[in-house]
């Protein structure tokens, strides 16, 4: 097991290191001078040179790479060229929007999907079942940015219940901040909930057909109790699997929805940084994302290895 973990750690480090080289090299090849972008079309050559040296762009490429990668190794993401702030602060600030948004939509979609799925399963073939299936079909078919526009139209422009976008910041208080996240979270949650409700319905129906349910019913357990105490827990396993898969989709969808609601999330930070040739921010965010993906993959691998009851394959894993 130890050897397995070590191997994973080495491959993880190598992958992230390769990612730093790729992102650094690609950004060197793209045309665009961050100093010129900052100083605009009236800048004089001496001013540009002064700013470039201030930004450290007058150093040779290899020196710049080593400086940046060395900082990374020490956990220092560097300082943004445009914002003149530590990249770690910028990322933390944006994660404070993207993470709660993803989490909120995850909670919302679960809270919507489970009761709906249960209801549909319990009343299979009747009106409410068809209603849930209809909602699911509609929810799956509509992309979240379109739902976002509809929500703005109804709740912001007509009812004036929620702002049409923007984010006041957590420093403005939890209330206004959450209020700004409700519509975007809902827009993200509806398509996810639609999928999840169908999965729940199917899973509950499958369990309802099993022997232990029949036994429970035969013992005289009530319909509701059977559904909640016997069928639901068993049905949760496939539901949780799908939910896990949806997390990555939520983060991807968040970028699109962030744009519709002009929320200052991580996706928009990256987008702006590319436009402004803020090399240090782009490099930092891309490497962090790479690290995140690699870590999740490694964790999944390790979890599978731990859960697998079979003895480790002989030949290369004999030491455990």
């Amino acid at each position, binding site marked *: 097991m130890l050897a397995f973990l070590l191997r994973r750690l080495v491959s993880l480090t190598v992958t992230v290191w390769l990612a730093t080289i790729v992102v650094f090299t690609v950004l060197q090849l*793209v*045309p*665009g*001078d961050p100093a*010129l*972008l*900052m*100083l*605009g*079309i*009236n*800048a*004089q050559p*001496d*001013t540009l040179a*002064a*700013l470039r040296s*201030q930004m450290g762009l007058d150093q040779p490429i290899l020196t710049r790479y080593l400086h940046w990668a060395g900082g990374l190794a020490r956990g220092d993401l560097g300082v943004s060229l*445009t*914002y*003149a*702030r530590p990249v770690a602060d*910028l990322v933390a*600030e*944006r994660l404070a*929007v993207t993470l709660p948004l993803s989490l909120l939509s995850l909670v919302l979609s679960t809270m919507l999907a489970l009761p709906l799925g249960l209801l549909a399963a319990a009343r299979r073939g009747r009106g409410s079942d068809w209603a849930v299936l209809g909602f699911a079909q509609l929810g799956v078919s509509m992309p979240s940015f379109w739902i976002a*526009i509809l929500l*703005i139209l109804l709740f*912001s*422009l007509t009812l*004036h219940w929620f*702002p*049409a*976008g*923007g*984010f*006041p*910041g957590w*420093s*403005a208080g939890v209330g206004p901040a959450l209020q700004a996240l409700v519509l975007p979270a809902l827009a993200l949650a509806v398509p996810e909930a639609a999928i999840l409700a169908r999965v729940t319905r199917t899973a509950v129906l499958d369990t309802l057909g099993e022997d232990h349910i029949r036994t429970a019913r035969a013992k005289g357990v009530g319909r509701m109790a059977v559904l909640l105490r016997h069928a639901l827990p068993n049905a949760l396993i496939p539901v949780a699997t799908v939910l896990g898969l949806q997390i990555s989709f939520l983060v991807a969808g968040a970028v699109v929805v962030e*744009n*519709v*609601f*002009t*929320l*200052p*999330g991580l996706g*928009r*930070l990256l987008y*702006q940084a590319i*436009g*402004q*040739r803020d090399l240090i921010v782009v490099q930092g965010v891309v490497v962090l994302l790479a690290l995140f993906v690699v870590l999740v993959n490694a964790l999944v691998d390790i979890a599978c290895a731990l859960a697998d009851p079979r003895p480790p394959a002989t030949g290369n894993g004999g030491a455990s």
Partner: protein
Amino acid sequence: MPTAKQRLTLAAAAIATAALALAAASQAALAQPRTDLVVGMALEPPHLDPSAGAAGAIKEVTYANLFEPLLRVDADGRLVPGLAERWSVSEDGLTYRFSLRPNAKFHDGTTADSADVKFTLDRARAAESVNAQKAYFAPIAQVETPDPQTAVVTLSRPDGLFLFHMASGDAAIVAPESAATNKQKPVGTGPFKFDRWVAGDRVVLVRNPDYDGAKPKIDRVTFRFISDPAAQVAALKAGDIDAFTLFSTYEALPEFRNDPNFTVMVGSTEGETLLSTNNARKPFDDVRVRRAMAHAIDRQTLIEGVLYGNGVAIGSHFPPHREGYVDLTGLYPYDPARAKALLAEAGYPNGFDTTLRLPPPPYARRGGELVAAMLAEVGIRAKIEPVEWAAWLEKTFKGKDYDLTMIAHTEPLDIDIYARPDYYFNYRSERFNALNDELNRTQDPAKRNALYGEEQRLLAEDAVNGFLFMLPSVTVQKANLSGMWVNRPVQANDVTGVSWK
């Protein structure tokens, strides 16, 4: 025990009371005129130090609100007192004497005196300066501080635009104590001070209680950054934003004009929108080709198509709202036949192939398509090449590697760019350079305007670039708001005079 029906009635009564109370509360809130303001802008400033960046958004947040230069430009483009309450110029135009407001203070409590003026000007012209308009400070020979309220600036050569440049955001007076941190925590002398910045979303300024001049009526101004056109319209309609400046979703304007809750103001910026032409590259080195292009472009159709009619045509590189403007729009009337004849005369009876590179602003992307179609009518087949901003600056502006491009030059009174030897137009004219030198030596306004007129005529005759239109300054605002600027003589959102009716 109340019956179910009674309980229902009770609940209904309770809800009705609550609703009435809420309504009364909001009525009371409505009776008080608002004292806050939310201004929408398309772009977020990268940082908030106007002395170290060209991004217009920096000045649109800080100019006159947070930072003050020695002089200010007001809504009508006039020079008015800034940190200096009086100034005088010597006969030879070389010595400028600025008398500062006696009680001016920076937001951190330190006094704002002539030492800060000297610090600011010396910093901007130093070898390691990163001022985007360093050329503004180049004529300065020395800055003296005979007393804390007086700064005397001596120039090495006369500069007719010196006062005008000292009123720009790039010349905002900063203090040595805070200059290094102004990017994130700006400290100025203006009537508003920095409160907070939610990166990616908004900057909040609050009224400076210690301001020594006239205090603004608004006690808090929030600048919100919304780049998506649909989101801009939604934020206005939802009432999240009180005014959106430099609004460029022109197709939404009829909707706002028809809504009594909104007022739409159309003024002018300083942005001459050009079909910039590489004068050194064949076939554009031939003035007949450039004139042919001028005849091929129908400016009115362009203004309709790009700005939905909200723009003014130009015939040279000068804004119509400034003194000294000469109307040259009639010099090359729209005439495809004449354009074809000129092309044939220049040796291109069948036209030629070229490339039109377009940066991201909507006026360029949309306008570029129209210009290409108009050029195609006379046989000039322009391939459109959309590029992002960074690439445009690198290849077109700095590398001067282009045929045609479309861009608005937004710096005020920037006709002198045609005298710069390395500018990307690749235009060289001894006559223009001589006129520009004379202009720099001239202080008398009437003579200056005459010289501006000659420069405009020369540029139009040489058809250096395609002179298209002035970029409009469109503000969509709530109808009961007053005091927002109509025109944009400098890049600014000066809200010091804004109030609710």
